[in-house]
């Protein structure tokens, strides 16, 4: 059974900016204000109706201190309770979990979560480097760039198939991004470019190539959470939050290793196993209609499908090869274009929740999947090896 909840909570409004590499025309609070006003408009409420603001970003990435205070002009937190959260790449989903908890607890009826990043203004590596202990090779830290997953997949499935599948994944994501007017990068790639890109895209680390990797984006996302009573009063299409889970359980922090005794990144699997078990979901691939996954690179997106859906052997490769993860496939992944297309870090994971909610509502526009969406899954992932999963439902019937 799902984790104990005092009362039901629904998403009643989502808003986001157009995401871009540069937004010279707005400062930070102005960028946030775009997402906030869009979310308020979407929910058809005013800032006066909001009881609490939950603000999140990676604090060092813009090189400003106390960002939630800087951003009040855009967030509308003046005179309201306001909480700042930073948990790494997962921050957006943590914002959603915290907002759900704050409303479910009965403390607030309406909470607005705001995820934000303006990566162009700061120095990401300068910020990330501070995660590492100076006594043990702080200088090695470079963020989310690792080639180990590419190595693993190639080892397991052979170079040609692995590289082709990863590039297929990448091109599918770009095709989705081309349908999303808010996406940052939408190149218009096509499947006939698989071979060329496999061999010509500049290498970053091993077989992790530039084209595989997510962007650095400026953007913001706001999501409004309401209690069941308020949601039913205010919204025609509330999206219910069924459950969420946060897993942080690597015994050994190991992002470089290949040794079977020191597994890399098993939090996705742990999170999915626990979440689905307590919600009596035995076949997630069948249960969920759409998955907005936090996929920082094509190799990870490809590999992680197996962890999230308990797949065996090469099932995850075949999902990609058969284009089942495309918007009209059996298990659409990231119809928004995902993280590879758009990555304003503090907003990225909240965008997963927002996009999943839009799919449930049927309001995603050009990137709305063609079949009815009743059950949606969203994930968050962070450089501190966290996994957050959130389940959204169309009906309040579980």
């Amino acid at each position, binding site marked *: 059974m799902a984790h104990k909840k005092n009362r039901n909570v629904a998403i009643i409004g989502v808003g986001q900016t157009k995401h871009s590499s540069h937004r010279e*025309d707005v400062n*930070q609070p102005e960028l946030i204000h775009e997402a906030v006003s869009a979310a308020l408009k979407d929910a058809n409420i005013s*800032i006066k109706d909001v009881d609490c603001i939950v603000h999140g970003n990676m604090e060092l990435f813009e090189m400003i201190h106390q960002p939630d205070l800087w951003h009040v002009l855009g967030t509308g937190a003046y005179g309201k309770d306001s909480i700042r959260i930073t948990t790494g790449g997962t921050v957006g989903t943590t914002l959603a979990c915290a907002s759900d908890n704050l409303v479910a607890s009965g403390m607030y009826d309406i909470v607005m979560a705001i995820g934000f990043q303006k990566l*162009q203004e700061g120095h990401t590596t300068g910020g990330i480097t501070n995660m590492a202990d100076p006594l043990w090779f702080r200088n090695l830290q470079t963020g989310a760039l690792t080639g180990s997953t590419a190595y693993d997949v190639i080892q397991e499935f052979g170079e040609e198939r692995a590289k082709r599948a990863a590039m297929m994944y990448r091109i599918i994501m770009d095709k989705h991004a081309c349908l999303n007017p808010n996406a940052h990068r939408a190149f218009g790639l096509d499947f006939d470019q698989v071979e060329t890109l496999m061999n010509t895209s500049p290498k970053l680390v091993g077989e992790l190539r530039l084209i595989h990797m997510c962007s650095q984006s400026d953007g913001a996302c706001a999501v409004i959470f309401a209690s069941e009573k308020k949601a039913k009063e205010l919204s025609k299409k509330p999206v219910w939050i069924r459950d969420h889970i946060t897993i942080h359980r690597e015994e050994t922090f190991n992002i470089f290793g290949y040794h079977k005794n020191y597994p890399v990144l098993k939090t996705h699997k742990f999170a999915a196993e626990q979440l689905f078990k307590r919600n009596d979901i035995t076949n997630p691939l069948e249960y969920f209609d759409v998955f907005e996954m936090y996929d920082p690179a094509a190799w990870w997106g490809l590999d992680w499908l197996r962890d999230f859906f308990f797949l065996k052997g090469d099932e995850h490769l075949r999902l990609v090869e058969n284009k089942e993860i495309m918007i009209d496939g059996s298990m659409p992944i990231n119809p928004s274009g995902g993280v590879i297309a758009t990555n304003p870090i503090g907003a990225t994971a909240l965008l997963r929740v927002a996009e999943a909610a839009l799919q449930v509502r049927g309001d995603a526009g050009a990137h709305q999947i063609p079949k009815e969406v009743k059950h949606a899954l969203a994930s968050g992932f962070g450089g501190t090896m966290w996994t957050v999963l959130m389940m959204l439902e169309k009906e309040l019937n579980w």
Partner: protein
Amino acid sequence: MALDYDRKDCFIVEGKLALPYSYFAGRVGSTFITTLRDKKKIMGVKCPVCNKVYLPPRQTCERDLTDIRDNWVEVQPAGEVVNFTVVRYDDKHLPRKAPFVMALIKLDGADTPIVHILDGIAPEEVKIGMKVEAVFSSSPTNTILDIAHFAPKKPEKAFVSERTPAGAKGEEPVISQEEKLLKERRKAMSKKVIITAALAGAATMKNQNPSVPYTPQEFAEEAYKCYKAGAAMVHVHAREDNGMPTHDHKRIKDTHDAIKEKCPDIIVNLSSAVGMGKTPEQRISQIVYVKPEMASLNTNTMNFSIIDRKTGKIFIDFVFENTFTMLQDFGKAMEENGVKPEVEVYDLGGLDNWFLIAKQGFFTKPYNFNFVWGVAGGMAFRPDMFMVLKNALPEDSNFTTCGVGIEQFPAVTMSCLVGGHMRVGLEDNIRIPTGELAKGSWEQVEWAVRIAESLGREPATPDEAREIMGLRKR
């Protein structure tokens, strides 16, 4: 807390991180900077809901997120300091060498303050509420430094504050039409400077300067010369033929009358101190007997000695007794006999003594004060102290000054400069400013006249002096 914990093998890793950043100003911030740069205008935005004018401008009103990005209003390049801090350390990132002032300035027309550098004023002079104005940069910087700094606002016109009388409770005293006219007349005569010649004193002897008068005839001759030189008043300590100061009523009256006979116009101001060792009765009875137009009134008991100014050696140690009772009794006696007191102020305490006794209400306006400098036992001349005394005076006051020895001319020059009157004479100083012996008090009067003229003031005639000081002509 004890600092004796074990620090053996405790390592510290020293590091340094670069923090590069860009800051996107946004459309609103950019418009502010470009308008400041190109038009030297400081623009805020006004919220139509709460009517606040925000400076720096912003896209939304923080209160309710009202979009105010297009509601530009110009604010004034001047305003007031609402708070400030003094930067007292030097560092390469700082815009000025310490100490300098960073102030929170609310410009006229804005409801929120901005922070900027405040120049052109010493840090200790800065006050919350002071008016300041923007000084624009001569070349563009594309930053807030297109306002180079703020500086104290230049006053649009001179501000003159009326002095309030000591102890005044803010109520306008009721004055007659006649008094009002008199006041106006006195004010009109503020260009006039009353020059007094203190002809002899009690201690200056002929062996110091042969022009010191002893006999009534000598006093008359000296007074006349001073009158011709420009003096309106003489101050007199009568002497015996042998030069000793006297309290003898007849001798004093003879001296007074001789002066008035030779020079009927001049004001005679008699001493109520007379000389050393006189009793209170001896000192005041002669005033009541002679009834001069004016007489000195001393305000405090003090050392009044003769000390070698170079070596500090004491020649004569003497306590000049002026108790509160004497101040009261002498003052009353003078006022009752139509003798205007010239209040002698040897230090600030003396003036305060007068204020205490003046509470009894028998002193008549205008009040006349003489600041005395350089008495061994009193205060040496200091311009600061002069201003303290001047500023402490009650309303409807005149003041003159005298100084012993070389302090004579600096003191009278300052008095003339700041609107007071001047006393010279051999009683105070036997020389002229060149260091030569004065040929008589009249020669010092000539010097005083020159000082007054160079400061744009004219010597008052005795009648003008009477009008200024409120004397009854005899």
